[in-house]
């Protein structure tokens, strides 16, 4: 039973990381109909920015240092995402195939750049010792990193929900997802909302990149981690429903839990480490058969 609790918390933590990535993808698609295949590189660059800062920061092994590292990872993701929207995506609005090609191209180019700079060997991010420690809950030992990832996911979800409900730009984003032309016809510059959504999505991705490295990858960051996570994030977005933030949150938890449950209980006994990943694809297939638009998404 106690193992079940630890595995569940691990699944929720993994779901939190997926949510951080998927939330941006979903908001971007919902408002702009852009399938952003460069989203993976936002999180990889966020993780590398965290690595660079932490390797130079004398207080990197302290809580304040980690908070600063996380802030820089998020800021890096935000800046790269905003630049991507302004320079590459904006001239291609209304041309979805070109957008897909340019985002794939950007991802390949920046992964190549990172390989050129850092090589294919993973680098280690300096983090506080408590982050790699465990907390005992009864007889069970829960990694502290799981709590950090879970707390971050919940905080970002709450912040995004507040932003979308309570702020004028949040209302513009929700309205734009429904009818962009009418938002323009109210005198609103939708282009600013586009940039803002990319920036928010990039910040969340940068944060996710750092957390994934620290919590699930032993502190390691490598150039291909973004692309690996992006596959699962797209699955989360499709299961949740394209454009639905709440759907992404539910789907992220579902995918995270299924992945760790199957990996731990079925994968370990069967000796098939990849069974957890396969189960996620199975969940995707079942959801799409039952609800082609995803759990909470608009229908195509």
């Amino acid at each position, binding site marked *: 039973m106690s193992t079940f609790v630890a595995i569940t918390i691990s699944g929720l933590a993994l779901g939190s990381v997926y949510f951080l990535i998927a939330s941006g993808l979903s908001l971007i698609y919902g408002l702009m109909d852009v399938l952003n295949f460069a989203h993976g590189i936002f999180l990889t660059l966020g993780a590398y920015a965290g690595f660079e800062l932490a390797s130079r920061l004398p207080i990197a092994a302290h809580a304040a240092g980690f908070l600063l590292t996380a802030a820089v990872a998020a800021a890096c993701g935000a800046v790269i995402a905003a630049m991507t929207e302004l320079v590459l995506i904006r001239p291609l609005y209304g041309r979805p195939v070109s957008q897909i090609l340019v985002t794939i191209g950007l991802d390949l180019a920046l992964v190549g750049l990172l390989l050129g700079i850092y090589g294919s060997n993973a680098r280690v991010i300096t983090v506080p010792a408590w982050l790699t420690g465990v907390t005992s809950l009864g007889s069970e030992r829960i990694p502290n990193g799981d709590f950090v990832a879970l707390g971050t996911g919940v905080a970002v979800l709450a912040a995004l929900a507040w932003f979308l409900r309570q702020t004028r730009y949040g209302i513009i984003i929700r*309205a734009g997802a429904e*009818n962009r032309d009418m938002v323009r*016809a*109210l*005198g609103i*510059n939708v282009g600013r909302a586009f940039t803002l959504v990319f920036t928010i999505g990039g910040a969340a991705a940068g944060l996710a990149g750092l957390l994934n490295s620290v919590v699930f990858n032993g502190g390691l960051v490598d150039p291909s981690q973004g692309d690996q996570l992006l596959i699962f994030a797209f699955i989360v977005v499709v299961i949740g429903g394209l454009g639905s933030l709440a759907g992404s949150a539910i789907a992220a938890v579902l995918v995270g839990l299924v992945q760790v449950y199957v990996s731990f209980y079925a994968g370990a006994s069967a000796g098939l480490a990849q069974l957890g990943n396969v189960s996620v694809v199975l969940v995707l297939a079942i959801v799409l058969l039952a609800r082609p638009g995803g759990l909470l998404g608009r229908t195509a």
Partner: protein
Amino acid sequence: MTGADTLAIEAAGLRADIGGSHILQGVDLQVPVGGVTALLGRNGVGKTTTLRALLGLQPASGTIRVLGHDVAGWPVHRIVRLGIGYVPEDRDVFTRLTVRENLRLAETGRQARYEQVYDLFPELRQRSGQLAGTLSGGQQQMLAIGRVLLHERPLLLVDEPTKGLAPLYVSEVIDALERIAASCTVLLVEQNVHVVRKLARQVVVLDHGSVVHSGPVGELTEDDVRRLLGVSGPA
């Protein structure tokens, strides 16, 4: 007084294609400042496309002068910020936002006239927390009109405001438009000739993508109505 001062809208040679069809084929349109000018025509002649082209929502060629500015090529939000309100044909309220959020979206930073909107349409006040998608067609039309009245605007483009409404709401919307038109210019697309005769000073009739008649509404004969609009019976 120059022509620019007396005309709220002046379009010349307006052309627009949709899906390979030539919808507008050189529309020359003049809308005088003040009162209601009605844009009439059979279904599919380009009335809605004309309104959308004036706002920049529909790509079009030709010259467009709105409220004294040459707006051809301007982005939509910049044209609208000249002081234009747009009430589209299908209302286009944001169904997943509340009534209050729909109105808040229309705020432009200046003092918003919520009380005036709520006085004109008291139902909107009662339903301010309700999702717009759950409103009736008439209530959605009130919301669509209400959001353009939130600020003083010199020009309103209103597309078939009575279409599909219950009779009770038709009279309420007509009364509202009559009051609104006392203080601004309205370009009204409307199929109902009775509504046009009640509200409009001028009429412009489109056919096959160009203007075939324009003048004071009093000069629109029953024969014109039958010939140009395909409407029979008392006009």
